[in-house]
């Protein structure tokens, strides 16, 4: 029997362009296939587009799901939207509420990532006046889920990401509720005072999913005694193909990359947590001895920091800082900021680069490493990324501690100098990528849903792959 699933995320699949005018809905919800990418909308960067959407699409195709619904925040979108058999129900917020919600969410995000640890520079979000806006958005989401459930009688609710955590409690439904925690979970950086808040809401779910074993262990140490498993994030490798020569040339021409240039690629949204500054500093150390080396920083702000999204300005601020840093290090002509790139350009970027870097201070997982491996490009990865769980340093990737500029620089130099090492890491990286492809995710997620619906609880913790 196909499962009737309702998903809830903050981040929408697509963000609509300012020029897009949603109709009155009298002719039914618009279909994404009738709209034009870039003109009407852009796919939102991150896990929602690369992981959740392909999963649901495949589950619909395979008959695992029937008519899934997806409730998400989308201030500029139509009330409903249909894409590949999935119906999106969009939540809109007034600007004032959106601002308050964004403020609390950002404070929570910073605290959960250990920014300003011990100092509590952002106050205690639960008692700021904007917490009312945060609660408002979550209650609006849970009410929408309940209204749809009344109409459509779902089998299971699948809530994604930390900012939606209260939704499970607010739903109050006895139907199964699964929560996927996408960001890192590190019990050593979460203030102990957050325990009651987080544990109260975690307990309202029947299952918590995290992205790797170390987060599961941390959640246990934190005191959560309920059901928790881990499933590695995954991507649909089918959508990554080799670039045509013309696409490659267009990409290089657009971003000033010459034939002789050796390229290091960082794919990440513009955010201090992503450590692009470390990448520039490590690059500066290597660039002196490799004159044709270029660093390409691909990505712009997230949904939260986009003016079409929640409107937080951190993406733009961070970009400015990075540009100033590159100028100060006299690297302005060797560090390329691409901003948002479309899928064809992303493919070309992977194709053209020699290696990738993931220098994040903390990273929920790091699917860009899997993408890099699919193109047989070795990756130098922060040991604090979730993907480090499947990397053995020097075997299928290179690990360096975040902030260790010399460590990153040494590993980049080693790869640039040693072709054999580069190709060995690339080959074994490709083999490791199979742990994080859609087929694997589909298998794990389908089993998880079937288990939870049949009332079975897996023995022990975790979900070994």
């Amino acid at each position, binding site marked *: 029997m196909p499962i009737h699933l309702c998903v809830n995320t903050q981040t929408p699949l697509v963000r609509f362009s300012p020029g897009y005018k949603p109709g009155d809905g009298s002719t039914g919800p618009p279909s994404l296939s009738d709209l034009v990418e870039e003109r009407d909308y852009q796919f939102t960067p991150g896990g929602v587009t690369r992981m959740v959407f392909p999963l649901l699409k495949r589950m619909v195709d395979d008959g695992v799901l029937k008519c899934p619904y997806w409730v998400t925040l989308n201030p500029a979108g139509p009330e409903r939207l249909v894409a590949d058999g999935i119906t999106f129900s969009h939540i809109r917020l007034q600007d004032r509420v959106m601002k308050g919600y964004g403020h609390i969410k950002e404070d929570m995000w910073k605290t959960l990532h250990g920014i300003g640890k011990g100092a509590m520079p952002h106050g*205690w979000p639960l*008692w700021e006046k904007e*917490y009312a806006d945060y*609660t408002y*958005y979550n*209650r609006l989401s849970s009410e929408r889920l309940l209204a749809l459930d009344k109409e459509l009688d779902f089998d299971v609710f699948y809530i994604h990401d930390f900012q939606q955590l209260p939704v499970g409690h607010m739903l*109050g439904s006895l139907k199964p509720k699964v929560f996927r925690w996408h960001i890192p979970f590190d019990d050593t950086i979460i203030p102990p*005072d957050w325990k009651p808040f987080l544990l109260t809401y975690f307990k309202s779910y029947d299952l918590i999913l995290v992205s790797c074993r170390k987060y599961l262990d941390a959640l246990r140490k934190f005191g959560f005694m309920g059901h928790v498993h881990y499933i590695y994030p995954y991507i649909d490798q089918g959508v990554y193909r080799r670039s045509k020569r013309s696409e490659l040339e267009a990409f290089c021409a657009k971003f000033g990359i010459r034939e002789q240039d050796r390229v290091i690629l960082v794919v990440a949204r513009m955010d201090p947590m992503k450590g692009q500054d470390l990448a520039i500093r490590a690059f500066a150390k290597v660039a002196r001895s490799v004159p044709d080396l270029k660093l390409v920083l691909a990505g712009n702000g997230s949904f939260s920091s986009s003016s079409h999204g929640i409107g937080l300005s951190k993406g733009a601020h961070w970009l400015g800082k990075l540009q100033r840093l590159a100028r100060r290090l006299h690297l302005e002509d060797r560090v390329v900021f691409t901003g948002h790139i479309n899928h064809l350009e992303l493919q070309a970027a992977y194709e053209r680069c020699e290696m990738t870097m993931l220098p994040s201070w903390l990273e929920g997982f790091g699917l860009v490493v899997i993408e890099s491996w699919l193109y047989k490009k070795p990756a130098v990865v922060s040991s604090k990324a979730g993907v480090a769980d499947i990397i053995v340093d020097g075997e299928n990737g290179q690990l360096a501690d975040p902030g260790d500029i010399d460590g990153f620089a040494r590993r980049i130099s080693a790869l640039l100098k040693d072709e054999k090492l580069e190709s060995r890491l690339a080959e074994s990286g490709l083999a490791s990528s199979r742990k994080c492809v859609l087929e694997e995710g589909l298998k794990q997620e389908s089993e998880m849903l079937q288990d939870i619906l049949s009332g079975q609880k897996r023995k022990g913790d975790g979900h070994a792959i």
Partner: protein
Amino acid sequence: MDTPYEQYIMPVVTFAVIILVTWIVSYLFNLVFVGWYRIGMSLVRLHVQRIATIVIWSVGLILAVEQLGLRIDLLLLLIGILGVGTIIAATDVLRNLAAKYFSDVYIPFKTGDTIRISGHSGKVIEINPVSTVLLTENEELVSIPNSLFIKEPTVNITPQAWKEITIPIAVGGQVDLPAFESRLIKSINKFKLHLDERFPPILTVKRREKNFYELVLTLMIKEPSKKDEITSEINRKIAELTEQMKRKEKKKTA
């Protein structure tokens, strides 16, 4: 000499009219009571409603029977004997019911708490009018008569139980729940000095009906001695807020 109309038909008609009036009074009472008394424990509300209905019907029946020319002193005697008999027969049950009423008010535990009483300990999974059911660590069900709670010391061993305040709230079904909650949280924020900041205020929807929501607000206080003051202050805020929201909704509908 009375005509057959005066002798037979008139009393029967009067009897029927009194029964009808009694029914209307009882119906109206229930309607008004349900609408008026939404805040509070649903069980207490149910008992008050039932007792009042029985009283209305008893008075109606006595008056109606009198119209038929029957001796009501006999009927009153019968009702009295039945009442006394019921009280004697159900002493234990009544004691438990009374204890339940007092325990609701004075004994600090609720469903979900872990308590210890008279050598038994476990999680409270049900509080009914007669007994409180505990689930022990060995997964056994223990039924504790409610009367025991006013005789024996009860220990609530739930962590932080002394801090917790739960405030039942009832709002009309037409209220914009997200907006209500958001305004409630803003109001509570003003009392944060007295609340344990580690615990956010949590609003739980206990019951959803077409015409109303039964909600419970849970807060954690810093000082147990301030419990009553805080509860009363927050209750006052809630009443103001529900009134404002009601007016707003009315205006919107108009």
